[in-house]
């Protein structure tokens, strides 16, 4: 049986659902998602969404802050689209019912965020993603969007040079089914779980990026991985930048507020890459607590402000860290947080493979360049969800019917492949491979990188890929086979780990979140370029493509 729709969207977070809403009235669109939509990682976004709403602010200032924050690697045409459409995206959600936090005059409240020259981050307490995702899900329900819940997409189907559908594993039955379509939009989010220490949901395994690469689409700027400065020690759950936006300060084991030495003007509200490196330097220099973390102190804000503005943070600290930030400082360390890189596409969502589109964290358009500013990722999902929907709708007019036979054949082959994996009785356990991958990436492809470490990491990742080829799951069942899902996710992550490491090794400069201790300067002459990775696992290749400049002159980035 092959299912048919005009458009398939993989992923039901904000980007996927917003794209689906944009297409719902134009064509037969369906969303394929490995979890229920409300379980998507968008729900965890805390701090807010940027838009120049104030009279004293402007989209141009927002655009400049974004480009500067990106260390000039962002494509300026894409940033223009992002920032020009920001207010409309926020107001659209307001019209759909999102309960933003408000000023006394009833207008949408905005808070300061790192790297921003104006308090332009709109928020709904510290549960902005939760509020937006529930709103957008409600609107998708209103429009009757078809959702294949708990279907894990395993591969794209390419026929005659264009994407013609995908193959997915239905978790409840264990069936592998083909879904034919005239277009596929990837919106599977980031790939933070490649790292051991990550703020990301456990489901963020980069499935869309891996599928796209296997289907022939390049991945772009994969080495630019954002490490959030403040993740809760132990579980690495995110402690929002909003906590510093509200006035939280960072201190080391000596009780010293150290940001003055790293970013004297912006202090704790310098961009994330700078604060993360500052914290890591303190820890590496022996001024961390227990050699592992520093303190984020909110106590001076007072109980009422903490409870009103940061209730979710307080809850997280109490339940997962055993500390109440009203009475004690929070132990924090840097951890992987966001994937600036992703599927190579232009700002309309188009990838170089016909019929294939990408949007949100899965994609790299690129609006974040070498470092994303807080508050710009939620914005990206909504603005470009709408843009990508328009692109797809327009392209459908000149797109023929899908190649159903190719989809059926692909589903047959995938069934055989998964059957082979399930029948393998001996081999490495995926668990052991996963446990090795995370620390390798944390240690060697983390906040600080160098040639020796990256070369070692590349060798270890390729070795793990080899082991994964021969992995055995043990005794599992057909229905709800999460061990199988996790093994397939691991294959995806190993492929992405290779792409990240290779990109990092080849980029012999420091820019934004990519910091090479052996090349500590930015090198615009050689590397004011986007990295493109293509090829097969174990044999990926790197090339470079130009950054779209134009509006803002490339300068040194100082805060």
């Amino acid at each position, binding site marked *: 049986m092959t299912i048919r729709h005009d458009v398939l969207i993989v992923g039901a977070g904000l980007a996927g659902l917003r794209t689906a809403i944009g297409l719902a009235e134009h064509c037969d669109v369906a969303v394929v998602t490995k979890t229920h939509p*409300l379980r998507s990682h968008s729900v965890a976004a805390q701090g807010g969404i940027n838009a120049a709403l104030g009279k004293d602010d402007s989209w141009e200032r927002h655009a400049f802050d974004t480009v500067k924050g990106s260390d000039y690697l962002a494509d300026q045409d894409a940033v223009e689209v992002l920032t020009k459409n920001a207010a409309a995206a926020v107001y659209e959600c307001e019209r759909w019912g999102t309960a933003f936090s408000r000023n006394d005059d009833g207008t949408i409240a905005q808070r300061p965020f790192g790297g921003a020259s104006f308090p332009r981050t709109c928020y709904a307490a510290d549960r902005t993603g939760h509020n937006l995702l529930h709103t957008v899900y409600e609107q998708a329900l209103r429009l009757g969007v078809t959702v294949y819940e708990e279907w894990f997409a395993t591969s794209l189907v390419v026929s005659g040079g264009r994407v013609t559908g995908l193959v997915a594993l239905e978790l409840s039955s264990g069936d592998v089914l083909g879904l034919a379509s005239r277009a596929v939009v990837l919106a599977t989010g980031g790939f933070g779980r490649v790292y051991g220490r990550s703020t990301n949901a456990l489901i963020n395994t980069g499935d869309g990026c891996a599928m796209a690469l296997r289907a022939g689409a390049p991945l772009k700027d994969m080495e630019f991985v954002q490490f959030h400065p403040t993740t809760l020690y132990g579980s690495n759950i995110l402690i929002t930048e909003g906590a510093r936006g509200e006035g939280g300060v960072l201190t080391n084991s000596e009780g010293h507020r150290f940001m003055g030495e790293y970013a004297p003007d912006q202090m704790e509200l310098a961009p994330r890459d700078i604060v993360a490196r500052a914290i890591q330097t303190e820890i590496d220099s022996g001024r961390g607590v227990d050699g592992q973390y520093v303190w984020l102190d909110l106590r001076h804000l007072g109980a009422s402000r903490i409870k009103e503005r940061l209730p979710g943070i307080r809850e997280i600290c109490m339940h997962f860290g055993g500390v109440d930030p009203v009475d004690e400082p929070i132990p924090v360390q840097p951890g992987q947080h966001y994937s600036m890189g992703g599927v190579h596409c232009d700002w309309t969502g188009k990838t170089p493979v016909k019929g294939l589109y990408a949007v949100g964290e899965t994609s790299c358009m690129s609006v974040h360049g070498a470092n994303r500013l807080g508050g710009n990722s939620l914005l990206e999902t909504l603005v470009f969800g709408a843009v990508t929907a328009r692109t797809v709708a327009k392209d459908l007019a000149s797109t023929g019917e899908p190649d159903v036979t190719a989809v059926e054949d692909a589903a047959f082959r995938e069934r055989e492949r998964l059957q082979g994996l399930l029948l393998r009785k001996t081999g490495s356990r995926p668990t052991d491979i996963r446990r090795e991958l995370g620390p390798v990436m944390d240690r060697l492809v983390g906040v600080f990188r160098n040639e020796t470490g990256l070369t070692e990491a590349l060798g270890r990742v390729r070795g793990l890929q080899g082991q994964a080829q021969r992995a055995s799951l043990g005794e599992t*069942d057909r229905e709800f086979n999460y061990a199988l899902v996790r093994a397939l996710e691991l294959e995806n992550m190993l492929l992405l780990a290779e792409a990240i490491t290779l990109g990092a090794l080849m980029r012999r400069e420091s820019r934004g979140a990519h910091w090479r201790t052996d090349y500590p300067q930015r090198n615009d002459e050689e590397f004011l370029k986007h990295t493109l990775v293509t090829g097969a696992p174990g044999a990926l290749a790197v090339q470079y493509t130009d950054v779209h400049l134009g509006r803002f002159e490339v300068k040194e980035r100082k805060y």
Partner: protein
Amino acid sequence: MRFLIARSHGRAGETHYDTFEVEVKKGDTVLDVLFRIQDEHDPSLAFRYSCRGAVCGSCAMLINKQPQLACRTQVMGLGEKDMHLRPFPAIETVPPEWSPAQGVLVEPLPNLPVLKDLVVDMRPFFRALRDMELWAAPAQEPRTQGPEGRARIQRYLDCIMCAICYGSCPVNAEHSDYVGPAALAKALRFYADSRVTDRQRFLDAALAPNAAPMCELIMNCVRACPKGVAPGGAIRQLKALGHGHATDTQ
């Protein structure tokens, strides 16, 4: 530490309990332990998960007979907690091989059909959102709203749709057509939102025969909710509105 986990294969399958001995350390959550069992002992063990930070609502289950999020439940603190729920069979009946002193009992969330092990069919829970049309009609223009207007609905906005209220409700245990507490809290969220212009339809939906009128104000939902939503309070207000003697909530 010993973990007794309910296992079953599909709707027709019998439930049995498997025992696992797992090493635990301070800070481990029940979700951590479930992963350890899947990784080290039995890869076929099925349970849902996503955020591991108590915001996505995936991992609601019955832990030592109390409905909780596995990711937010510390193994070490388990003995100390009692939600004081009004009993009904699913949380009363204890397998003969278990007593609290012997370890941790993990079972699927009650009141929803079990699909496999700790995975339940959430469709009856989510169906109410569609049936009651719990969404806002898009407004033509953005609206203002005072901070106090938002504060009035804040508590209901915090709902993560984990279904713990549904799984703790003795009425849901007996009546599969009852929409359950979360949907009613969401109905009040829209009814009481100062921006909503067609509010009456939310009250009408909440006062349908399979909705608020079925609630017996037992308040298990209030005691069990991990996010402080207190759906029972919302239902009490909806009932009062239905009887025409409520103050204006908007």
